[in-house]
């Protein structure tokens, strides 16, 4: 029987998940872990799948099909190179490529697959997906809902108690949120709601427009009127978006972006995370409405939820986390790479069908939140000893996160950075890991309090590098502390166990050695050693019952008996 793989057949990207030796992993295509869901023909008629097909899209849109997932279940066809293809056929070409990738990784033919679909997919779309799988040469073992796959990736099916889980999936081009109920291994999607035209690409475009407007303000020229400049700006926007997920500011530089009467014009803009958040907030608020709608459809309140899982690359944006956390009162889980969670979950389902053992996905996470002490100003009052989290607990490590903080007073020249670990809103109720003084602060502008960017860099060993940069002078200070109470991983535990073993022979061990010798002699010589046999049995019993005095007596006697025998 062929091995079974799990396939996330996505709108923009697809991926293959597989469980081997109990471990779930992605089967990559060379250096690529995800494959663009694009199919095309070159002018010479060669079939292109994935990145090369995507690369030619602008040049040969009439020879290239993308986002075919949106058409699944419809009777619409796509014309490529003068021939009409059904959505099933296009999907089948992608699936066949994924099959090839799986076979290259596993070194054998693979003919069985689990394929995921969105929870909102119609029966026709599901059937079309199954057909596509069969055209590609697969026996489709299961059509699996994407939110269910995410829950499986997190191993939530392995708990007995009933759980209600929301899966929030914000990808490159689609958004949906599903309410999943898990009960003794049975998984059911109770409701799903979303927007098939919302995702990270929209955020890129909003940020690109923002950058174009900054440029226009400075030079009176709109870069969007030039294709070349537009393409460069879109790149820059996407890069800036990614940087802003870990940094509070990003410097966007596009030198020689345009020319005005032969004079080169450069874009050089600093974008604050807050500015980016302001841009995308309306779109994100829309996702919260979908969330409420899904809860309503499932006849549930946010307080009924046990967990929130994050899927899709755009869930890496900190504001998404904060909004959903604030909306549900739960800390969303993002430990498993949100780009890969669905494919890994499909791989988990495949393992269940194949009867393969499966361990939980092991990810190194921080067990406690890490942050610094701050003072808050509320209603004109200064409230000291507040705790501001920079790295949330359950964040996958290694990780790097930064935030910007303002001094309280305009003439303030120093800030004490106190690093804490814990969950209490009151800083001093958490564990103080270390602190350092940052002085000679300079204000960025006269009359404004100085600001510092505090960066937390947490490595796999639990070492936390804290650095602060003065925004005005770029001067830097920092400290490295050890984040405590990091749970030992199984390998560390095993190493520790081995270390303490066999250090010295204690009383109990001495007794065991004597008993072992007695037993050996009894076996060797057999008859005539009734006393030895009786004493040995007595000692064994005394050890069992824990009578120490009796143990000592019998040990003594046993030693004598054995000694005498030894003398003979």
């Amino acid at each position, binding site marked *: 029987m062929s091995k079974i793989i799990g396939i996330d057949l996505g709108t923009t990207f697809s991926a293959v998940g597989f469980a081997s030796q109990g471990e779930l992993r992605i089967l990559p295509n060379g250096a690529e872990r995800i494959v663009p869901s694009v199919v095309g023909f070159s002018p010479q008629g060669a079939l292109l799948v994935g990145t*090369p097909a995507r690369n*030619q899209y602008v*040049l040969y849109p009439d020879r290239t099909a993308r986002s075919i997932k949106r058409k699944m279940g419809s009777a619409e066809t796509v014309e490529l190179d003068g021939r009409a293809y059904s959505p099933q056929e296009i999907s089948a070409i992608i699936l066949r490529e994924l099959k090839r990738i799986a076979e290259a990784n596993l070194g054998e033919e693979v003919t069985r697959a689990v394929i995921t679909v969105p929870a909102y997919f119609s029966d026709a779309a599901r059937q079309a997906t199954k057909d596509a799988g069969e055209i590609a040469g697969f026996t489709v073992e299961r059509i699996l809902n994407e939110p269910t796959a995410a829950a499986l990736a997190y191993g939530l099916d392995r708990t007995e108690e009933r759980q209600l889980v929301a899966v929030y999936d914000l990808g490159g081009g689609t958004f949906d949120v599903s309410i999943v109920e898990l009960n003794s291994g049975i998984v059911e999607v109770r409701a799903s709601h979303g927007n098939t035209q919302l995702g990270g690409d929209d955020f890129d475009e909003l940020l690109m427009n923002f950058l174009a407007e900054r440029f226009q303000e400075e030079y009176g020229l709109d870069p969007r009127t030039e*294709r070349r400049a537009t393409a460069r700006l879109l790149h820059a926007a996407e890069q800036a978006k990614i940087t802003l997920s870990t940094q509070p500011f990003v410097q966007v530089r596009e030198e*020689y972006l345009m020319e005005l009467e032969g004079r*080169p014009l450069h874009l050089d803009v600093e974008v604050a995370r807050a500015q980016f958040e302001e841009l995308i907030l309306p779109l994100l608020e829309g996702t919260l409405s979908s969330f409420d709608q899904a809860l309503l459809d499932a006849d549930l309140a946010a307080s009924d939820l046990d967990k929130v899982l994050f899927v899709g690359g755009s869930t890496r944006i900190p504001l998404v986390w904060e909004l959903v956390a604030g909306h549900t009162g739960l800390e969303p889980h993002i430990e498993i790479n949100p780009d890969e969670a669905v494919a890994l979950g499909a791989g988990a389902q495949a393992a269940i069908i194949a009867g393969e053992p499966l361990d939980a996905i092991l990810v190194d996470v921080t067990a406690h939140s890490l942050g610094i002490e701050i003072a808050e100003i509320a209603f004109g009052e200064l409230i000291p000893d507040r705790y501001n989290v920079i790295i949330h607990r359950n964040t996958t490590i290694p990780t790097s996160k930064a935030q910007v903080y303002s001094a309280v007073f305009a003439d303030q020249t120093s800030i004490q950075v106190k690093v804490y670990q814990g969950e209490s809103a009151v800083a001093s109720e958490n564990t103080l890991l270390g602190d350092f003084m940052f002085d000679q602060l300079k204000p960025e502008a006269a009359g404004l309090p100085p600001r510092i960017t505090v960066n937390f860099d947490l490595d796999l060993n639990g070492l936390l590098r804290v650095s602060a940069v003065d925004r005005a002078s770029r001067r830097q200070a920092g400290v490295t502390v050890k984040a405590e109470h990091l749970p030992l991983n199984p390998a560390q535990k095993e190493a520790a166990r081995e270390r303490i073993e066999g250090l010295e022979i204690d009383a109990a061990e001495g007794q065991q050695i*004597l008993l072992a010798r007695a037993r050996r002699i009894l076996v060797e010589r057999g008859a005539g050693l009734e006393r030895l046999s009786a004493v040995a049995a007595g000692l064994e019993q005394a050890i069992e019952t824990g009578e120490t005095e009796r143990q000592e007596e019998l040990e003594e006697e046993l*030693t004598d008996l054995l*000694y005498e025998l030894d*003398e003979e």
Partner: protein
Amino acid sequence: MRQLILAVLNVHTLLGLLAGWLLGARRAQVAERDAQAHVDEQFAAQLERAAEIAAQLDPLVAEISALNTSAATLRESVAALDKQLGRVGREQFKVNTLGEAQQQQIENALEQLGELNTHREADVALLREQLHADQSAQRLLVIQRLLPALDGLDQALAAGERLRARAPNPEPQKISALSFQQRLAIALGRGEIPMTRVDGAAEWRDALTAWLAGLELVRERLLHALAAERVYPLSARGEPFDPNLHIAVETAPATDEHSDGMVIDEYRRGYQVDDRVLRAAEVVVARAINFNGEENEG
């Protein structure tokens, strides 16, 4: 008859014996008297000697009793020693037993260590390999971070070229602006149309050209550093579009110079490391346009 002979013989013998006894008794009486005196004498001497010996015996007895006492003590000591020896032996036995067990444990541990060492060696080799791969990956990451700077340099050079192209060029003066003599000379083939004078333009262009050449050297230097890491720029301009190396970002009408499917221009240069594409080139590709305005197929 025989009995009679025997009886006569016996009487005779008895008579003889009686006579002898009587004689002997008499003689013995005398001798006894003599002997008695001698014995008395001897007895006295004996007594004397006995007293002497008795006097010598007392210290001996004392000595013997002392000897007896010390023998008992010795016996006790020997018993104690014996006991002690037994205890020591037992202890020794116990220690030996434990020692044997420890020896066994040490042997086991050594064996395990040996195995571990073998594993360790394999691990180290693996780690070294991994370290090497990690270092390469890290260096590649650094290079990837440097690429935007190199892109900027490309932009700067392209902008410089455009600037140079815009620099005022000397051009032939208008015929109408020439004097009659000049026009005549040109008409007779004895002269050429003089060029307009642009103040400092030539010098300025020369300076810009030299400056751009310098910048080009800086770029070469950077590319050289990348080549040391086996990172090379992808050629794109003038090549046929290859979806494995190029990303089409724009199309432009094909011309005689640029046929359909040729890369005309680069938005962003691509790079490869060994045979792998590190970053595909973003290119403008020529497309043939039909007379009815539709794009050509293939």
